[in-house]
């Protein structure tokens, strides 16, 4: 019973939050709603016993959303609405509700659970974090490492793209400009 109440409550809340996120014209509202939604999702994780995941969700998204906040402040006059030209709303609403409807039609059917076996079953008595660690560092060791590489890539990408070096485009400079720049560099170094 508790589960049901919790589910419906958080379901309502997440839907509401995300709805605000995609519809509001206030950047800060959107940001806040997104953050709230994320938190509510972590609640589902806790309900479903995925404590580790819940924790990660909160940590990662609080970090990520903080960053977003920062950018939001940077880019927008937060007091004003974000102006977005809207095209045909019917298409958007039509497409997405159709998508939802179709998927729901199929998904709401019960799944035939035959022949499904838990390849990495949860172990009685062990904490969720422990279990996750066990699987993560055996079976999912390689993906984990690759994910590390991915984060490295993302980091490098972020640094490169946001870096100052991007301000001057060598691609667009003509040969003579490039020569001048080199000479200036030399002068500076000297």
């Amino acid at each position, binding site marked *: 019973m508790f589960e049901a109440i919790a589910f419906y409550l958080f379901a309502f809340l997440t839907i509401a939050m*995300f709805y605000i996120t995609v519809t509001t014209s206030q950047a800060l509202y959107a940001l806040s709603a997104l953050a709230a939604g994320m938190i509510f999702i972590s609640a589902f994780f806790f309900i*479903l016993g995925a404590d580790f995941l819940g924790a990660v969700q909160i940590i990662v998204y609080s970090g990520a959303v903080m960053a977003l906040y920062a950018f939001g402040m940077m880019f927008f006059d937060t007091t004003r609405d*974000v102006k*977005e030209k809207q095209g045909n709303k019917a298409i958007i609403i039509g497409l997405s509700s159709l998508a939802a409807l179709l998927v729901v039609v199929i998904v709401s059917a019960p799944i035939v659970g035959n022949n499904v076996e838990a390849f990495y079953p949860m172990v009685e008595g062990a904490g969720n974090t422990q279990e996750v660690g066990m699987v993560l560092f055996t079976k*999912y060791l390689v993906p984990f490492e690759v*994910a590390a590489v991915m984060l490295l890539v993302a980091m490098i*990408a972020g640094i490169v793209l946001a870096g100052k070096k991007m301000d001057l485009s060598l691609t667009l400079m003509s040969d003579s400009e490039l020569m001048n720049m080199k000479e200036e560099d030399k002068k500076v170094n000297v």
Partner: protein
Amino acid sequence: MEIGLNHYLVLSTILFAIGLVGVMRRKNLLMLFFATEILLNAVNISFAAISHYYGDLTGQMFAFFVIAIAASEVAVGLGLLIVWHKKHNNIDLDNMSSMRG
């Protein structure tokens, strides 16, 4: 009133659809990124739920990696956003159509 797997799947689908609305509706790049985050998070709920109902950890693993991917995407996405903003001083998609046809 038992909450079954289907409930979660439906919820997940609805959230995913909201994400799609955002993706299609948003003309502001930053706001568009929010929508893509919603997509990934919507799926994560299902992964956790399936994992729970099957007693299998793979779903949680997947969700974990999805979070990692979402985070990385934000990093790269913001990098691109900054570059664009620096050059154009706006992040509106409608100004982003020099190539067409």
